[in-house]
């Protein structure tokens, strides 16, 4: 269990954050820039001192103002991946990787050098200096360096924010694999919802120094009041699926959820692999009857559960197909179709509108 409770006054900005993270897997710390996410992470790492509070990881107390506990950063056993990498420029990649590892007592090392180098695919870079690495390579080395200290927890502060989408797609799979292969809880800061969807199981939403909500990711995203939180463009549903057919004759991947099959552009995935899919509300249309001749790949029977008025000219409709799906339609079609709660309809989902675990930015890469 990761327990964070920090209070800090920084000029006119007050941070009051209290949440619990998952003891394994990824807990995402989500919020707009300036929400105080980095400050919270810095306090967990010991680089910034809270005025009061308590920080503990799996029973190990790092900070407790009441008991006057305040471990220095080097004693906290926390691996920190910074947004800007922060590799030591005067050391080779190999020396950067082993810098923290050598300072970890042998008996406490459970992360070994060779598997990490192999996992991150940085074997050919070991003799280079950081200045000769690309952005994506730097972040992979930074992740490896933090991992090799055999930390009790990993902090990642927007590790992909400084990378372009191609580099993001290069680094993201490594983080996914990292979660699977090492049982280290990760606190992952991001303001990009898609990254979080790809990685996290838990989520903490911060705004203006405070925690708005925290808990299981899917449950949190399904909450109607959270729909508006993510803004007009981000509004949508997240659905856990399993790969049914990695590639059919038309180059599409079939994903199963409940009794339904969702066809999406081919994914790099294995049969039976779990995939989390995000379907933005604006990519879902509604029909009263199953359309016979259409280019829509996914036509699924559903029932209307909720109707939420959005700013004109839109209406958001929550559909139930065993799991929740949101559709955003214009007020004009809403009235024309005369939609009501409880009505049986068909959800039309463009196959291109689906985001998935191995692509970072959904709009562009899945489009076409």
């Amino acid at each position, binding site marked *: 269990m990761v327990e964070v409770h920090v209070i800090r006054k920084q000029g006119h900005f007050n941070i009051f954050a209290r949440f619990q993270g998952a003891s394994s897997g990824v807990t995402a710390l989500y919020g707009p820039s300036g929400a105080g996410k980095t400050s919270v992470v810095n306090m967990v790492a010991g680089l910034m001192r809270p005025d009061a509070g308590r920080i503990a990881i799996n029973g190990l107390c790092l900070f407790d103002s009441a008991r006057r506990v305040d471990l220095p950063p*080097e004693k906290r056993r926390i691996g920190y991946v910074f947004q*800007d990498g*922060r590799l*030591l420029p005067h050391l080779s990649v190999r020396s950067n990787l082993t810098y923290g590892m050598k300072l970890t007592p042998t008996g406490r090392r459970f992360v070994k050098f060779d598997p990490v180098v192999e996992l991150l695919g940085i074997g050919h870079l070991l003799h280079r*200096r950081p200045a000769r690495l690309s952005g994506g390579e730097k972040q992979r080395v930074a992740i490896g360096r933090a991992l090799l200290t055999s930390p009790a927890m990993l902090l990642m502060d927007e590790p992909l924010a400084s990378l372009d989408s191609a580099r993001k797609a290069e680094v993201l799979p490594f983080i996914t694999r990292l979660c699977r292969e090492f049982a280290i809880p990760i606190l992952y800061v991001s303001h990009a919802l898609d990254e979080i969807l790809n990685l996290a199981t838990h989520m903490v939403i911060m705004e203006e120094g405070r925690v708005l909500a925290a808990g299981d990711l899917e449950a949190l995203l399904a909450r109607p009041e959270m729909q508006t939180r993510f803004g007009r463009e981000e509004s949508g549903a997240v659905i856990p699926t399993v790969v049914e057919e990695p590639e059919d004759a038309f180059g599409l991947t079939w994903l199963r959820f409940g009794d339904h099959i969702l066809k999406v552009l081919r994914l790099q995935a294995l049969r039976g692999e779990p995939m989390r899919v995000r379907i933005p509300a604006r990519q879902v249309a509604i029909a009263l009857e199953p359309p016979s001749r259409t280019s829509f790949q996914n036509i699924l029977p559903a029932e209307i559960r909720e109707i939420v008025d959005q700013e004109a000219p839109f209406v958001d409709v929550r559909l139930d197909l065993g799991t929740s799906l949101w559709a955003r339609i214009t007020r004009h079609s809403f009235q024309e179709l005369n939609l009501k709660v409880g009505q049986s309809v068909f959800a039309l989902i463009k196959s291109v509108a689906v985001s998935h675990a191995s692509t970072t930015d959904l709009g562009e890469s899945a489009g076409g």
Partner: protein
Amino acid sequence: MEFLRLTQVEVEALSLSLWVSSWAVATSLPLGILTAWVLARLRFPGKNLLDGLVHLPLVLPPVVTGYLLLVALGRNGIIGALLRRYLGIVLAFNWKGAVLAAAVMSFPLLVRAVRLSLEGVDRGLEAAARTLGAGPLRVFFTVTLPLMVPGVITGLILAFARSLGEFGATITFVSNIRGQTQTLPLALYTLTQVPGGEVGAMRLCILSVLIAMAALVCSEILARRFTARLKG
């Protein structure tokens, strides 16, 4: 070629100068780094006073600095008497005093260069090293100091050159004793004061220029090599 042969006096002056300057730079370097660190990183009352004190030799007439050294550290000086009685150290009128005079005079240059490079070190890198398990002292020696190397080299060369040229404070504090305190500038000055000394003076003059040039070139090469290392 006869013109280029150095006399005994000139050889003594040259080797003494190199000896004194090397010692001056070597002994003031650790203290210079510490002072630069204190000035760059700490906040405390009286910081401006310390800053002023360090820079004083830069703006004070060297003779005044030498005189102050003599008053404080001379045989019967306030500190000098204590040093002599309890530690048996005498600084006045010997090469150790010349080292002290050179060190004091070149100290501000050293501190300025080191402090500038220290302020250029990204503190985020130090924070990163802390999270990797290194304590503050280890961070300083494995991250901060290596990244300061170009500035330290510049400071060393500046201080070394300043020490080689030290005249006023040295002659006031430790006088002009052949083989003891007569460094290159003092020997040059002496030669200009005696009839027929022009040739010797010119030789020492050329020597000074050569040493200064060599020091500059060395520092340039070292700094460039280090920067190249950082760039991979």
